[in-house]
């Protein structure tokens, strides 16, 4: 069945090549700016990745006019304000972000203040509030999970008011996403597994979401295929450049898919346990994904069944219900394998979530913006409790 309406808008140029993060002259020449401010974090800088990119820029005749490395685990509002002041004072004409989701989201929010001025919260909270394009933003992801390099959303934590602010805006889509698997080689197995499960959850939720379209489906299915082929390899053998490349491309494809069709209640759950118990986002998604697929089963099984061949499951002559259950079983086998490798917890009880907090998680997840797009409509947190108990 075709959707009543869909829109596909993806102006972000995506380039992929081993080593391309140090060889960006052709792409930057087209953008036409020469002075860039670099936003990253200390872990990435300590690994030498910021120096590496800067050296490549200098060799190609571009200038890095400043650095901000104080991005925290969550993109934080106060950091955004501090960084924006530095960017404005630096004479930069554009931003290069090097890192995972927090770094990229920080850079997106900084670019709003850098390009459009004003107060981030007062002037730009809401949906699509920007009225003109921002300065160029080039993203070099160092994890394969967030997909933020191709999404129109920045999520910023307001530490003073203890709330997550969401900024969805087409003008936040970066100009260029640079996929260089060498930039993810140093990602440890646990981070590789967690970010990979984040990407898989993006793709799965986008595929069955209420705003899915035939176009977003193509990217979701492509992402799932690459993740099933490459995630365990990348965890087991961190220097497997092909597996790293496959995961990087998969995360970007999943990002393109979910920025159009959105995520669902699994992300709502992950946001809830992240906010209350600091459970890393990818780990939470990995824990909740198979249980969320079960929770939504009646609403998604026909479409889920079509994933069977991609998941290495038989499709010919198999009833849709059975094929869909096989797809969920394949996800469980993946998370179990990652768990055997010591890379991914698969129970909420193993990540510091107290059992008496399950009603609180249900309440928060129900109120999360992602849950609105879930294929199974939900009205009461009591509906969510069995789902969370299963994950516990």
């Amino acid at each position: 069945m075709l959707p009543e309406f869909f829109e596909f808008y993806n102006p972000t140029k995506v380039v992929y090549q081993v080593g391309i993060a140090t060889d960006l002259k052709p792409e930057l020449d087209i953008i036409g700016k020469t002075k860039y401010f670099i936003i990253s974090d200390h872990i990435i800088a300590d690994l030498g990745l910021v120096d590496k990119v800067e050296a490549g820029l200098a060799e190609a005749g571009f200038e890095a006019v400043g650095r901000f490395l104080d991005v925290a685990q969550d993109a934080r509002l106060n950091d955004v304000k501090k960084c924006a002041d530095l960017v404005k004072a630096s004479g930069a004409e554009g931003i290069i972000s090097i890192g995972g989701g927090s770094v990229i989201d920080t850079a997106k929010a900084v670019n709003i203040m850098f390009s459009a001025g004003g107060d981030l919260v007062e002037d730009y909270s809401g949906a699509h509030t920007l009225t003109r394009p921002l300065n160029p933003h080039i993203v070099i992801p160092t994890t394969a999970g967030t997909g933020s390099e191709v999404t129109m959303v920045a999520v910023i934590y307001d530490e003073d008011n203890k709330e997550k602010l969401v900024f969805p805006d087409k003008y936040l889509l970066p100009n260029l996403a640079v996929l260089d698997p060498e930039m993810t080689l140093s990602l440890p197995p646990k981070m590789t597994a967690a970010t990979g499960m984040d990407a898989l959850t993006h793709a799965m939720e986008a595929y069955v979401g209420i705003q899915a379209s035939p176009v977003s489906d193509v990217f979701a299915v492509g992402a799932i295929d690459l993740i099933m082929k490459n995630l365990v390899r990348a965890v087991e053998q961190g220097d497997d450049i092909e597996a790293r490349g496959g995961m990087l491309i998969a995360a970007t494809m999943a990002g393109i898919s979910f920025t159009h069709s959105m995520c669902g209640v699994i992300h709502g759950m992950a946001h809830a346990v992240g906010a209350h118990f600091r459970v890393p986002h990818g780990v939470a998604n990995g824990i909740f994904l198979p249980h969320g697929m079960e929770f939504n089963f009646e609403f998604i099984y026909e479409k889920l069944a079509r994933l069977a061949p991609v998941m290495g499951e038989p499709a010919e002559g198999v009833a849709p219900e059975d094929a869909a259950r096989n797809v969920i079983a394949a996800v469980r086998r993946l998370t179990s394998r990652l768990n055997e490798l010591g890379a991914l917890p698969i129970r909420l009880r193993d990540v510091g979530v107290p059992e008496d907090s399950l009603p609180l998680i249900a309440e928060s997840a129900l109120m999360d913006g992602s849950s609105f797009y879930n294929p199974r409509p939900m009205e009461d947190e009591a509906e969510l409790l069995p789902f969370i108990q299963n994950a516990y």
Partner: protein
Amino acid sequence: MATFESAEKFEEVLVGFFKLMGETPAIADKLLASKLIIRFNYSDPDLVVVVDCSGDKIDVRPHDKETKATVEMTMSADIAHRFWFGKVNLTIALTRKEMVAKGPIPKVLKLLPAIKPSYALYPEYLEANGYGEYNILKKK
């Protein structure tokens, strides 16, 4: 051509409907639970209305440009009119910029199930109050 011939008529119809929603427990209770203060900025014809859900009862205040709202929704009067028939998908309207929302969007999205009964209420209200000419369902 705009549905409403004047700002006065649009205000009469819409403010009356908002007040009816505020007196309908199935809708009002959930709106009050949200504690949101929403300012609607309409164009063609122009009108500003604040729906204040922060107190014990819903307060509808036309022309209130002073109160600090939690959420501001900006749209044409025609889009607003069609919305109350259930004929506008909010997420699509936001994507296409037929509506612009400033403030915490997840809280706005969460109100959608609460206001669902209003979609049936709106045409009934129009008919019952002499505004039948604006009932787009009847015209079809």
